[in-house]
């Protein structure tokens, strides 16, 4: 299994505070990884930094994707390599509809023109998987969407853009039981159709119950304190973090 994503002693700061300290992890092609940790551990920071968020500064270490150093690359370049981040709190963008946005993004990523008819068909299919009302396509991107609707819209984008690596940041938090089921369905569909890699950031993973987790990383106080197989995730779900973050 070849390495897809690798962070090498990644140290990240924002507003004068150090949020990640020498975090190193590797995600292979087709693998499903879980990143867990208590609130404020730096999980979102890691996800956003891999995606290239301007809010964070990398003060140490490098990021590699497919063996290439992407540490200095802009977000859109990284997206074109096949990295996708499902945001915890997606921003609202008035002035552009969800459908139009997806079509443009897909065109950018594939480098070819996509006929409107073709796009609408794909969109309808993806929306059906997620039980989304087709009218969402004509609504302005995330504007007025509830928390649950926003998360669904992120998974819809995942299905439409078909990245090689999908980083899901707290995709299940704040959702009711049915919504969690739908999001799970979406992730499963993504794995089935794309066989991409997943890095799932969570601290409360109901989502994981449906998946085969290859590796678990536990983050606390900005450091990766423990790594293990899928069983580790299951254990944390049962008995919590405490014994892994003691002494840190």
């Amino acid at each position, binding site marked *: 299994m070849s390495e897809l994503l690798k962070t090498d002693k990644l140290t990240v700061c924002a507003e004068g505070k150090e949020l990640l300290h020498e975090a190193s992890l590797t995600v292979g092609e087709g693998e499903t990884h879980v990143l867990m940790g208590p609130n404020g551990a730096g999980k979102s920071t890691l996800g956003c930094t891999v*995606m*290239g*968020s*301007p*809010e964070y500064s990398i003060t140490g270490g490098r990021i590699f994707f497919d063996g290439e150093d992407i540490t200095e690359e*802009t*977000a*859109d370049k*990284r*997206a*074109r390599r096949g990295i*996708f*981040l499902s*945001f915890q709190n*997606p*921003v609202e*963008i008035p*002035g*552009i509809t969800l459908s*139009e*946005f997806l079509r*443009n*993004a897909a065109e*950018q*990523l594939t480098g070819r023109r996509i006929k*409107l008819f073709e796009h609408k068909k794909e969109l309808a299919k993806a929306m059906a998987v997620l039980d989304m009302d087709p009218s969402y396509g004509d609504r302005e991107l995330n504007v007025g969407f509830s928390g649950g609707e926003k998360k669904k819209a992120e998974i819809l*984008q995942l299905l439409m*853009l078909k990245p090689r690596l999908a980083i899901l940041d707290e995709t299940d938090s704040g959702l009711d039981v049915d919504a969690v089921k739908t999001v799970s369905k979406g992730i499963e569909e993504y794995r089935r159709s794309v066989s991409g890699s997943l890095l799932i950031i969570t601290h409360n993973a109901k989502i994981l119950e449906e998946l085969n987790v290859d590796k678990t990383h536990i983050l606390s106080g900005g450091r990766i304190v423990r790594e293990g197989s899928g069983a580790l995730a299951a254990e944390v779900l049962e008995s919590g973090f405490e014994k892994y973050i003691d002494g840190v």
Partner: protein
Amino acid sequence: MGTTRLNILPVPTFSKLGVNFVERDISKYEPQELVIAPPYENPVRADVTGSTDIKLTAPENSSLTVILYIKPDSKLMLDTFLSASAGSRVRLVQVFEGGGQTVSRLTSELGENASLELVQLYLRGEDTVSEIVTKLAGRGSAFSAEIGCRLSGSDKLDLNLIAEHTGRRTASEISLGSVLDGSAQKTFKGTIDFKNGCGGSKGSEHEDALLMSESVKNRTVPVILCDEEDVEGSHGATIGRLDEQHIFYLGSRGLSEEKIYELMSRGKLLRTINKINDGAVKQRIFDALGWEYDD
């Protein structure tokens, strides 16, 4: 010979800001007259290429749509007078494409329960001075304006909109979306004027200006004049570049910054363009903008 003051701000402000009025020489225009009154085809379509005085009358309880495509050969002055009688519903679309000096003045009077939906689009234009005065005199009358503008190069646009509420329970809703590039200059004066006696009225105005180059000049004067207690008025304006967070979000989906600006500026104009339910006119607009038209 001499200049006339146009686009006069109802309540003047600090003179140094230069927004109280503009001056233009309008002595040499020789307008043709165009009367639009029943019986007429609905919608009424007209191409305006030279100076024109248009008189529009919508009889009681009628429904009228007028689409004017204004593309001056060189200079032109357009005076439009609209009288919307009680209960009438008027849709007026004015598309201004390019041109030399253009002066447009639209004055509308709305009768009881009449409504005017105005859609205006300004696509380039060396020097456009446009005034929109709507008198909501009839009780229950309503006015909505959806205005879009795309300026680049050294285009200039001075827009003076006044919604005058005199009747009770009248409502106005004004929305302006602009995209400025190059060294374009735009001044928008939008006045909601609540006169005494217009109890129960509401007025709201919003401007969204996307500035895309460092040489643009944008002036916004959102005015509310209030002489009546029982009203609700609001206005808002957002001016500048795109939010960094927005750029990151859209960028994380593979869109380059240039592409993002292209999309967002399209989006702003589409808001206005989509209010024009006429395929032929939309095609013309897309052609003028150099966009591909697929539907």
